[in-house]
């Protein structure tokens, strides 16, 4: 007999962390149906795993509980006596083990060593703000800025290093001529690009490269890929003085 300890119906479009936070929150509130004190359940058959991804279930066995996340893929067996928080942690651990690529920003950073954003922790020193919200910073602000900025740069690095992401038809990616975005000199734009016969912005040159040596399609100059590529290329020239128009 499968005993459902907790059941909740979540429009779980986002599988994973968001979902696990919900488990942490709800599991702590106690079961809606059934009870941990109820009679021990008969061993669960594998083929009776929950089939509805939106319904994470806790399944009780003698001394343990099989806990399945809302994507229907992650299951972990834990001690029955654990609290909701511990159950959620256990499931999170399992999810992380099953998703080695979860921390893609850290991996991208390790693989391609892009430069970190500025350290703003100095803003936390001394008095905070002068009677208004702007200028009142917390440690969380600083972390969010760094994390979000770095994520855009990491995304750019990922695209920069992938012919597939760039839509190359000839197996060429940016890094093949510009390792670590070297020789891209974003600080020199805008400048008169002699070969184009007009003033070019960095994004014009990125687009030119993607269309020509990379043999990809024309990029949306305001599209997410262009924004990410630009972010990565700029980030790599951190510390270099702006010098627009330089040849």
């Amino acid at each position, binding site marked *: 007999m499968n005993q459902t300890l907790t059941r909740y119906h979540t429009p779980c479009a986002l599988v994973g962390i968001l979902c696990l936070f919900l488990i942490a929150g709800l599991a702590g509130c106690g079961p809606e149906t059934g009870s941990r004190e109820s009679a021990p359940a008969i061993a669960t058959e594998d083929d009776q795993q929950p089939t509805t991804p939106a319904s994470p279930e806790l399944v009780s066995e003698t001394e343990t509980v099989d806990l399945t996340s809302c994507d229907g893929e992650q299951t972990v067996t834990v001690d029955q006596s654990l609290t909701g928080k511990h159950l959620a942690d256990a499931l999170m651990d399992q999810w992380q083990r099953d998703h080695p690529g979860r921390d893609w920003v850290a991996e991208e950073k390790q*693989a*391609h060593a892009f430069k970190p954003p500025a350290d703003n922790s100095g803003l936390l020193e001394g008095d905070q703000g002068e009677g208004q919200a702007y200028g009142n910073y917390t440690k969380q602000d600083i972390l969010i800025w760094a994390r979000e900025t770095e994520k855009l740069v990491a995304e750019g690095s990922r695209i920069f290093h992938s012919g597939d992401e760039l839509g190359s038809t000839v197996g060429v990616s940016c*890094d093949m001529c510009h390792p670590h975005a070297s*020789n891209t000199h974003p600080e020199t734009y805008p400048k008169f690009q002699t*070969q184009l016969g007009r003033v070019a912005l960095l994004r014009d040159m990125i687009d030119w490269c993607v269309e020509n040596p990379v043999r990809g399609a024309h990029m949306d100059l305001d599209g997410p890929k262009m924004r990410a590529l630009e972010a990565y290329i700029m980030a790599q020239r951190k510390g270099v003085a702006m010098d627009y128009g330089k040849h």
Partner: protein
Amino acid sequence: MATYKSVETRYLEEREELFRGLRNLDRRSFLKVSAAAVGAAAGLAAPHSFTPVTVAQEEDAASEGPASEGPGGESFRFAYISDSHLYERHVNDRFVRGLLRGVDDVNRLDPQPDFVVYGGDLAQLGQVKELELGAEILKNLKAPLKIMVGEHDWYLDMGQKWQELFGEPTYSFDHKGVHFVVLNSVVEKDFWTDRNLTPMQRMRTVAGLDNGLQSSFTVGEPQRKWLEEDLADLPDDARVIVFSHSPLYKLYKPWNFWTDDAEEVQAILQRFKQVTVIHGHTHQLLTNRIGNIHFHGLLSTAWPWPYAPEGMPELTIEMSRPDPFSATDGCGDGEVQVHPDGLVDKVYSLWNRNPITVSRTYMASMGKQDVPPIPNRPSY
């Protein structure tokens, strides 16, 4: 009956005629004629389209010929092609055309070089069809081929296909009194097993020049031992030339312009009066000298690399920044003239530019004599 000839045909015929005539000229009249020729050609095509470089080289080579045979031995010349990074033709024909051009360049040399050295990275992702295509194209070389292995050739199947086509990656041979050694300098320690990478993931990791998940290149203990034994019987004044894919010194680790056990290898070469190391991998003009060892890089037929952001060797004449709008600028092939004293003149035959020769006298004088013309634009 008059035959119609297009502008191109007439131009090519004139060009052919000019080159035939040039071979019989001495240097003085050669310079005159070539200047006139460039002027004459200016209206027909870009002036670089027929730079009379081979003629100049041939003349040098001829004057160094048997007559200048010194106590060290004979002087001779070999050619090089390197770093073609082939995909299959249907994936990317630009790189295939690059290698074909290199082979044509070398086959056009008259007289032919004694042999051709291929500097590694024949394939881009080490795939069977890429390597087979490369081997097929290299078969068109008139002169014998000597080849070294690059990381792009190796890390899909750990050298299986490459060795099937070309044999052992580590070997030596003697030619006209010079002892040549070929090393596999792209041995990386296992970074893939722990990460559970598939062969293609491993290959792609190594194929990324700026990918920091891979290890550093080494020659490794077994090959160093082999090298010691191979050189054991040679006297200290022997003429030794080493071929390795990576530079056998430490230039810039993040791009593997680097050999991790370079010092150990250099120590083995230390006792010789002078040694020349010719390496691929860096796709640029690159010159270095560490004591008795002279290092020369090779040009690629696929694309040029930018210079490493630090650690540039003093003797390097930095090639100015390649034109991104020209697919072949900064690419090329070249020749190496070996002199009786064992030192070499290294010729970088850039496809879109004047050739640059880094001479033995420049190297011997630590850059004081015979300085090659320094490009007037930055390299970035």
